[in-house]
């Protein structure tokens, strides 16, 4: 005996959907290979880490102390020496021609100041065209200078006869949660959000609008298939594929970039699921509003892919955006999802650290599914 209350006829739709996905190599490659490709691309090629920055030195002091100081920059892999300047006038040309991104200017009083125990000042000129990179470079410079200062201080203490002094503070250049400032660690959560958004919103909207456009939807509507069966049957395949893509990203992230999940897998799955449901709702909603696949794709891309890519904090830090744009980011579920994901994956945080983000995502999911099923019912019934 079949239990008619709980028996839903979704298997034929799921099977058919998988067949069509398999047939359409484009969809499959978008869903499975693009995330991996993006991870590699962003992780390696478009590395946000700033290494081997070209640096020129204008040393007015020309002493052994200033040379020792300068060397500090080039023993790290962050800077490469391109030129030693003879006059101040050369600086402008050098920067304009992009022969160097950073110029270190050491005043003639440098050695004197250090030996007298006064604060020695150096000037650093950074090409600010790429503000993110510039900020990172300044961070490195600051760290290297601090480190050197400590060394000088320690040496002077030693010279003054105090033995066995311990470092008061460890001045290692340090960035929280992402100690080597590795972009991959930020990218993995971002890519997960991005790929979920794309599969959920774009694929769902397209999969349903395609049936409407081809007229097969009408055939389904005169069949005994219920709206809920149709929606589940249509979304389950994409859910499975996005899960697969998510696991792929996590796996690649861990073997290629050493991004391991610090926090709980359960929380990760939970937050991801909530976010995914909200995105599905968005995809369904779009599918109820447009008639053609072309329009569905455009709208889905505009409301999902672009903002997730540009505004969620995936690539560009939100705090660097103009205030109005920052305001808009509050409307994006991906923004909250990213905060939660980064908290779980990078910081190993528990629910208490991001319960507010999870709550907003839940509310968003409930609203989206609510509105879209109301509209679906109107269209399908």
């Amino acid at each position, binding site marked *: 005996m079949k239990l008619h209350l709980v028996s839903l*006829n979704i*298997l*034929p*739709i799921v*099977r*058919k959907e998988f*067949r*069509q996905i398999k*047939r*359409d190599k484009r969809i499959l490659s978008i869903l499975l290979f693009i995330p991996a490709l993006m991870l590699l691309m962003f992780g390696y090629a478009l590395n946000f880490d700033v290494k081997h920055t070209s640096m020129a030195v204008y040393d007015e002091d020309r002493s052994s102390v200033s040379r020792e100081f300068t060397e500090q920059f080039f023993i790290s892999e962050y800077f490469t020496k391109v030129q030693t300047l003879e006059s101040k006038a050369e600086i402008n040309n050098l920067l304009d021609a992009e022969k160097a991104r950073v110029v270190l200017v050491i005043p003639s009083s440098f050695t004197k100041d250090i030996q007298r125990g006064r604060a020695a000042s150096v000037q650093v000129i950074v090409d600010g065209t790429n503000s993110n990179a510039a900020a990172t470079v300044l961070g490195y410079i600051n760290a290297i200078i601090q480190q050197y200062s400590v060394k000088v201080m320690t040496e002077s203490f030693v010279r003054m006869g105090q033995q066995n002094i311990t470092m008061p503070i460890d001045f290692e250049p340090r960035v929280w949660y992402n100690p080597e400032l590795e972009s991959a660690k930020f990218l993995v959560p971002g890519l997960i959000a991005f790929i979920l958004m794309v599969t959920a919103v774009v694929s769902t909207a397209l999969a349903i609008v395609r049936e409407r456009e*081809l*007229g*097969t939807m*009408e*055939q*389904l*509507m*005169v*069949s*005994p*298939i219920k709206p809920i069966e149709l929606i589940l049957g249509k979304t389950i395949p994409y859910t499975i594929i996005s899960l697969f893509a998510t696991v792929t990203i996590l796996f690649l992230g861990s073997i290629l970039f050493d991004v391991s999940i610090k926090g709980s897998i359960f929380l990760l799955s939970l937050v991801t699921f909530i976010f995914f449901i909200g995105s599905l709702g968005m995809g369904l909603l779009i599918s109820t509003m447009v008639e053609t696949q072309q329009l569905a794709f455009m709208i889905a891309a505009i409301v999902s892919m672009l903002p997730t890519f540009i505004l969620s904090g995936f690539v560009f830090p939100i705090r660097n955006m103009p205030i109005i744009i920052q305001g808009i980011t509050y409307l994006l579920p991906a923004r909250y999802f990213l905060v939660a994901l980064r908290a779980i994956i990078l910081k190993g945080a528990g629910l208490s650290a991001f319960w507010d983000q999870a709550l907003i995502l839940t509310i968003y999911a409930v609203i989206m599914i609510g509105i879209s099923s109301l509209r679906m019912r109107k269209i399908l*019934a």
Partner: protein
Amino acid sequence: MKLWKGHKEQLDGKAPMDNDCAVVAEELTKKFGKFIAVDHVSFKVKRGEIFGFLGPNGAGKSTTIRMLCGLFSPTEGSAHVGGFDVATQPDEIKSRIGYMSQKFSLYEDLTVEQNINFYGGIYGLEGARLEERKHWVIEMAGLAGKESMLAHTLSGGWRQRLALGCSILHEPPILFLDEPTGGVDPVSRRKFWDLIYDLSHRGVTIFVTTHYMDEAEHCHTIGLIYTGKLIALGSPTELKHSLDRYSVFEVQCSNTVDAMELLRGQAWAAETSIFGSAFHISTLNVSDAEKKIQGILTNEKIAVSRIEKIIPSLEDVFIQRIAEEDARKNGARN
């Protein structure tokens, strides 16, 4: 071959009312905003008959069929399909009807067999029953050997028969076909009608829309719909006899257009229409019509090669009815 199972179930008396009629429409009306697409249409379709719903493009055929299938709810009036009310019992209706929409709804990127499996699946067919029905459909549509071809590689006739097959996998006792032969070659059309007859012999009620006159002749009952109104209803013979008070002539002459223009001015000429290389003229209350026509045309130096009194065709009936309807509407406006 086997009995049509669905039909037997239907005869078992599950349907609550009017056991002779598979479809009953009463004052069925659909408005889109202010526009009336279907205007107070009433008809009955008897069990097991082929009901042809005929009308030009935009007449309201698809809208009517969609209301009967539960895709649109009627703005006014009511309709019962298999005894169930389309407005309140769409779920009961859905499992008892087959529907083939105007664009045959196949998945082009799936194979013949996958299409059948899918449509069988959504009607809950599985296992041996699905295999049996699949076999039947493939035989019926002449698709043996083509099971693993993609649907989009099939030519019009095959696709149309496959679409028909997919819509009757679950052996529905009532079948709705919306312009099933649109854009299909004449040989395939012929074959398709053979299938429709075959289904009809098995007891399936068939409601088919078309704008081909010759197809209307194949139907047991015809409804003519024009600008949303049902303007003729009856068997082909009844409809032709409805023109008995007119005499219809087929005229072959050297200048058809001028000849029609000339004759239209005569008080006794009811209607003229092009028919192949000739034209038809229906006349009312006039004796010696043949001689009069001959005289008028010869006077104007139009060479008449043939005048023949004919039994009116359905087309003559429809042209007559449409003209009457237009006249009525203009009269109402003036």
